[in-house]
């Protein structure tokens, strides 16, 4: 394609350069009813799954219809959303912090035509473009990362497993029959971009083999001290090696100290460790960020490894469904997954969900591992 200049002059890169202007101010894009009643909301109701009504002191009402979105989307799909917003919502819409989309209208009469329109739209493959749901005690969208789409350190994919999981738990997205909201999250490596460490059910990509060492180029493309300092278990040390009769600086890795976090690869491109058979997912449960009833919690590893099985990750989706259904059946109202597991005890959690307990789940990282062991005789057989 021919080059089309935007007006930028590569000969004078700093000329006419605009910088540090920040994002547009949020109130430029507020629907009129939101702008008018800003800070004066009285109460809200969830009318049905995916539909909220907020009442203002002035008596104004705003109806929000929340729809699921794949997060990774084309300009074509965004244009389609804009067309819907133009048609029903005066050109306004918003994205939630879980990457759902909300269409807002200012009267009840406008809700049904909007919902009918949203429900009628499907991709050629048959999936719903704008499934309505994600409110109340449901499984709203799955917060996720880049995976094999764009990142160089993943141990699993993101978009693929998220689609597989959301297909499996779709009935919980479009209903509100769980004891409390169940937040799902996925991160494709231990960097844990997103919300994996604080979600009710979370998936994180893990490796099971130590890095390969590209000695021939390591000292040229890596800052060796950074690679050494990147290791949480101090498995890496600088060393010298002879290649083709030439002394080279490189690193040595103590494999029995390596737990395959991949942090050294993040810092040093000569230490790749992705592996088709070795890589897979760990599943964590019980995290939350809200302060409601109990304090925020970290999620805890309950399944050390399920293999990567593209394109549908059947083992992964099966385990997640298993946990979700056991929780839905057993937990009390308002109880998040972590609160439920802590109330019944983790040994009961494993019994109820039918998950096997393996030695991998016992914390062995530094001093604080001790506090995760049981210094009590209180347990259930």
């Amino acid at each position, binding site marked *: 394609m021919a080059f089309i200049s935007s007006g930028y002059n590569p000969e004078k890169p*700093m000329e006419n350069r605009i910088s540090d202007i920040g994002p547009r101010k949020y109130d430029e894009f507020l629907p009129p009813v939101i702008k008018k009643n800003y800070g004066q909301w009285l109460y809200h109701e969830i009318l049905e799954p995916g539909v909220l009504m907020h009442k203002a002191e002035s008596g104004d009402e705003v109806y929000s219809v929340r729809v699921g979105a794949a997060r990774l989307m084309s300009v074509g799909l965004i244009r389609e959303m804009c067309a819907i917003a133009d048609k029903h919502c005066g050109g306004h819409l918003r994205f939630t912090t879980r990457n759902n989309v909300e269409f807002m209208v200012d009267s009840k009469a406008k809700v049904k035509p909007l919902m009918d329109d949203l429900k009628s739209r499907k991709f050629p493959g048959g999936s719903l473009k704008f499934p309505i749901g994600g409110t109340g005690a449901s499984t709203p969208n799955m917060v996720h990362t880049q995976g094999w789409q764009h990142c160089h350190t993943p141990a699993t994919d993101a978009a693929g497993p998220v689609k597989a999981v959301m297909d499996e738990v779709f009935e919980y997205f479009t209903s509100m029959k769980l004891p409390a909201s169940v937040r799902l999250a996925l991160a494709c490596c231990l960097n844990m971009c997103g919300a994996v460490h604080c979600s009710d059910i979370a998936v994180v990509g893990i490796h099971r083999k130590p890095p390969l060492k590209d000695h021939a180029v390591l000292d*040229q493309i890596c*800052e*060796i001290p*950074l690679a050494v300092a990147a290791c949480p278990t101090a498995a890496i040390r600088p060393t010298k090696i002879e290649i083709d009769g030439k002394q080279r600086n490189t690193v040595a890795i103590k494999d029995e100290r390596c737990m395959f976090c991949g942090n050294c690869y*993040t*810092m040093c491109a000569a230490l790749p460790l992705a592996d088709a058979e070795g890589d897979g997912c760990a599943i964590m449960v019980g995290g939350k960020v809200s302060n409601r009833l109990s304090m925020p919690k970290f999620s805890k590893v309950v399944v050390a490894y399920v293999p990567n099985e593209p394109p549908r990750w059947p083992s992964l989706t099966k385990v997640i469904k298993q946990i979700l259904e056991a929780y839905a059946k057993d937990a009390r109202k308002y109880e998040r997954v972590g609160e439920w597991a802590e109330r019944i005890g983790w040994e009961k959690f494993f019994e109820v969900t039918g998950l096997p307990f393996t030695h991998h789940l016992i914390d062995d990282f530094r001093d604080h591992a001790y506090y995760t062991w049981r210094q009590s005789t209180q347990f259930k057989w």
Partner: protein
Amino acid sequence: MASVEFKGKSFEIDEDGFLQRFEDWSPEWVDYVKESEGIKELSDEHQKVIEFLQDYYKKNGIAPMVRILSKVTGYKLKHIYELFPSGPGKGACKMAGLPKPTGCV
């Protein structure tokens, strides 16, 4: 692996234009890169930054933290950006022949 020819010298570079080997660095390299980094004329201040980065790298095996670069050269970050519009990593380190910065950048 791409390699570029400039003033009779050959440099092996990666896709971001960083030198593949620190030993390949020569003053011609700076001349070659400065254009793409938005630098017309090389001043003493540019030289001072480049020399410090190279000294630090030879001594410590890593690029200095931005705070150290500022403290030793006496140039505030704002001034470093005035010298190297792409910043200390993509601009100055590349011209000094240091390895490409890594991590979540």
